[in-house]
């Protein structure tokens, strides 16, 4: 009887709609898996800075609750850390850290901050499922999140407390809310609420990272492309009737949310906004390996994001995504030519444009090319959606009597190798390359970027703890001092190990393979009198991290 009543209570808590149940399952699944697999993922350079910023921001908001006046006078002190990016996502990380690590004490410091990142991943999974269900039924809702999160690099981005997956989630959420606001999903009654949500979510997107600003021309372009014939036909008076209220909402709430969640702007809004945009308009170009060339300065090859996408997304998933994109573009073309009528042109436009625009944007030769796939990740959920719909449609067309059997088989064939890759490369997500590249080994032969920003060092920490001489000075090279401090605070790195500024004053050198830094590895050989690593981290035999030690420093 008790079990039954518990089941009944649980059933009441669950959403009634099957699509929402699938979405909830996906959200919870992603949240749990990300939380369980996060400890293996090391701290990257940018994450170490965001972790520091997050705790500062949380302290600010706690002070603001207790003593608003005092908090206002100390804005610069708390928000000076990482003022290159707005404060929303880092604020969330600070909040989860304050709650779970400092308050409840149920997680370590790193996991506490990262819980915010798991939440963003969970939200994205749920939204993907919802939109997938709306486009292609239960199969669509089940497959769309899988096609996104079983890409090893996307799976990796579900863990660190950085800005790219939250930005992807807010971008996707804004597009979803916009779609609903213009009647997508057939629910016209609530379009006003969805328009409001569009503005708020757009605000969250621009309050997370500057990529969000591109949503304005993108969504406007999508609307205009569909509405233009009618506007030309009916004249300017039709504009007021047809203009989506979501754009007004974005215009109002976008800047408001940015301003409200980023206290750094409060003392001098315009000068600081100007500095913020100036920083990103003149962003530094980091050296980056691409097909055997070290890219340092523009013009960068326009092929870069297309080639890297083709070589990092598991091949069968890539086929699904490309097939879905081609299908969507074909539907647009056929609809414009009047061949088919049962196509929602605004939906197809929205999906195709969002699937292509972020990639095309990074292809622009003067835009900095670095950071793997993360800068065009907002495109990938849309490609996953289109891929899921293509799989469902293939089943419906090929065997109309048993479409699920075909869709299920194709999905299994697409997702099984991807899941294998995820399991194989975790936690080295920044070093993941697909089977078309030949994995990490094939990519190394092609002269592609092997990894970036120092997080793969986490794998050698237990060995270093076990072998380093007491009080040894360690040069962590690509890992930041903030990351080292974080590892020590969580007990993952011995506290007696000291920071060294370079191989010349170190006893142990943890060298992260970066082609542009090889001179530092070779100087380590000279300084330590040996080119033989004491240990290393290898992915498919490809060196990622090499640990060198002076005689006597490794026991």
């Amino acid at each position: 009887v008790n079990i039954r009543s518990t089941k009944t209570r649980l059933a009441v808590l669950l959403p009634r709609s099957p699509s929402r149940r699938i979405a909830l399952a996906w959200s919870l699944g992603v949240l749990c898996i990300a939380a369980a697999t996060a400890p293996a993922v090391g701290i990257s350079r940018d994450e170490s800075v965001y972790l520091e910023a997050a705790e500062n921001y949380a302290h600010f908001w706690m002070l603001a609750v207790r003593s608003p006046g005092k908090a206002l006078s100390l804005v610069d002190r708390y928000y000076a850390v990482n003022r290159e990016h707005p404060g929303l996502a880092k604020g969330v990380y600070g909040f989860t850290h304050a709650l779970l690590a400092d308050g409840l004490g149920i997680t370590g410091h790193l996991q506490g901050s990262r819980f915010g990142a798991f939440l963003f991943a969970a939200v994205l999974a749920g939204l993907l499922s919802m939109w997938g269900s709306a486009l292609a039924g239960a199969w669509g809702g089940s497959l769309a999140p899988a096609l996104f999160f079983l890409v090893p690099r996307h799976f990796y981005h579900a863990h660190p407390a950085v800005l790219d997956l939250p930005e992807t989630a807010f971008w996707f959420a804004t597009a979803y809310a916009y779609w609903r606001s213009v009647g997508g999903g057939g629910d016209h009654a609530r379009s006003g609420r969805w328009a409001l949500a569009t503005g708020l979510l757009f605000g969250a997107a621009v309050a997370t990272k500057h990529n969000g600003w591109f949503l304005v021309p993108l969504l406007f372009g999508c609307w205009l492309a569909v509405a233009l014939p009618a506007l030309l036909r009916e004249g300017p008076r039709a504009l007021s009737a047809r203009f989506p209220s979501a754009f007004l909402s974005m215009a109002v709430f976008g800047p408001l949310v940015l301003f409200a969640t980023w206290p750094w702007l409060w003392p001098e809004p315009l000068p600081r906004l100007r500095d913020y945009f100036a920083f990103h308009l003149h962003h530094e170009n980091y050296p980056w390996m691409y097909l055997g060339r070290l890219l340092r300065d523009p013009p960068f090859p326009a092929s870069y994001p297309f080639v890297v996408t083709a070589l990092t997304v598991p091949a069968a998933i890539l086929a699904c995504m490309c097939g879905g994109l081609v299908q969507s573009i074909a539907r647009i073309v056929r609809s414009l030519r009047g061949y088919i009528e049962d196509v929602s042109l605004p939906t197809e436009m929205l999906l195709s444009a969002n699937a292509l625009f972020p990639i095309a944007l990074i292809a622009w030769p003067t835009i900095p090319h670095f950071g793997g796939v993360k800068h065009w990740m907002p495109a990938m959920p849309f490609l996953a959606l289109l891929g899921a719909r293509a799989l469902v449609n293939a089943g419906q067309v090929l065997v109309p009597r048993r479409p699920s059997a075909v869709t299920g088989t194709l999905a299994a064939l697409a997702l099984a190798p991807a899941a294998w890759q995820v399991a194989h490369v975790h936690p080295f997500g920044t070093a993941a390359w697909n089977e078309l590249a030949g994995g990490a080994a094939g990519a190394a032969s092609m002269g592609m970027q092997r990894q970036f920003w120092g997080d793969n060092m986490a794998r050698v920490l237990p060995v270093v703890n076990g072998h380093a001489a007491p009080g040894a000075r360690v040069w962590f090279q690509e890992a930041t001092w903030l990351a080292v401090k974080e590892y020590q605070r969580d007990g993952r790195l011995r506290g007696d190990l000291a920071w060294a500024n370079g191989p010349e004053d170190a006893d142990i050198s943890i060298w992260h393979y970066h082609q542009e830094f090889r001179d530092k590895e070779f100087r380590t050989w000279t300084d330590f009198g040996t080119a033989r690593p004491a240990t290393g981290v290898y992915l498919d035999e490809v060196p990622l991290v090499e640990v060198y030690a002076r005689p006597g420093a490794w026991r």
Partner: protein
Amino acid sequence: VSDRPDYLGPSYMLGTPSEPPPTRAQVWRARARRLLWPPTPEVLAALFAATVTGLGGYGLLFAATLSSRLPSPIDWEAAAALVGRDARPGDIVALAPPWAERAREFLPERLPTRPDVPLVTNSFLDYATEELPGVRRVWLVSLPRAPGYSGDIARELASRSTAIDGPQQLGALQVTRYDLQTPMRPLYFFPDRLSSARVQVGEETCAADAAGGLRCAGTPSLRVAREVREVDFLPRACISVVASSDPARPSAIDFPDVPMGRALRGHTGAAGDGGLGAPVAVRLRVRVDGEEVGELEEHPRSPGWHAFQFDTSRFAGRRLPVSFQLSAVQPTREPICLDAMTLP
């Protein structure tokens, strides 16, 4: 006029030869065209499904076979034991693919029987033009089944070898020994003799520092040392030197007693990120027994390992002092990587 031929008349109706029977390829092409064109939804869905199936199957096959294509620690240990047992002075180890630098973790750094003799493991990309001074034999440790492997390095080594021993299969590794046809045998390799040199900036003599280099008083950035430095992405054992920008006080490295041959050959290159700094050209002058035998200019904006060679045949067979003078056009902190040798 009336004799014009009737073009429609029977005498002009030549019989057309019958069509030859279609070839098998033509039959299949026609069937495929009928099946695929115009592309119906069913055809497109089938193509999509076939692509997903093919790539999914390939992905599974790739993942399932990857570990067997790569060496295990035991394979590396076996290669290390083999090379350690049979290597001799004048041997080096090459890797194919060059990224397989895990080898350094296992292979001996020195000959087990002669701990004073180093056994260098190189990760060069190209052995066709690499000079390999002092090398007589090359042990190639290769991963022939690794993704992205190409046999280029093996072919390049084979093309410059008289004898090839192997390959010996050690699990997923292969070890092959190449005996070079015309090894370059320097009489004197300057970087290895830096400890016997005198380094001066103008009249000031530089003193040895704790790290094994020579530091010049009054100019903290001016240091001369025998180091392995990165030049154009590759490790080069060289004399790392920051050139003085004072024309009256050039940096000079004097080797007192050098066995001379027909040529003095060497290389220069900007070390590390030196090529990315301010474009400061460095001028190198080489003197033998006080007589200038050549000069060159190293432009940091042209990355690479630039070879030079000066004729010293008039000094051949004698032991003479050799001096390298370096001067920068403008002040610079970026080191130049310099190697040089005398050749018989």
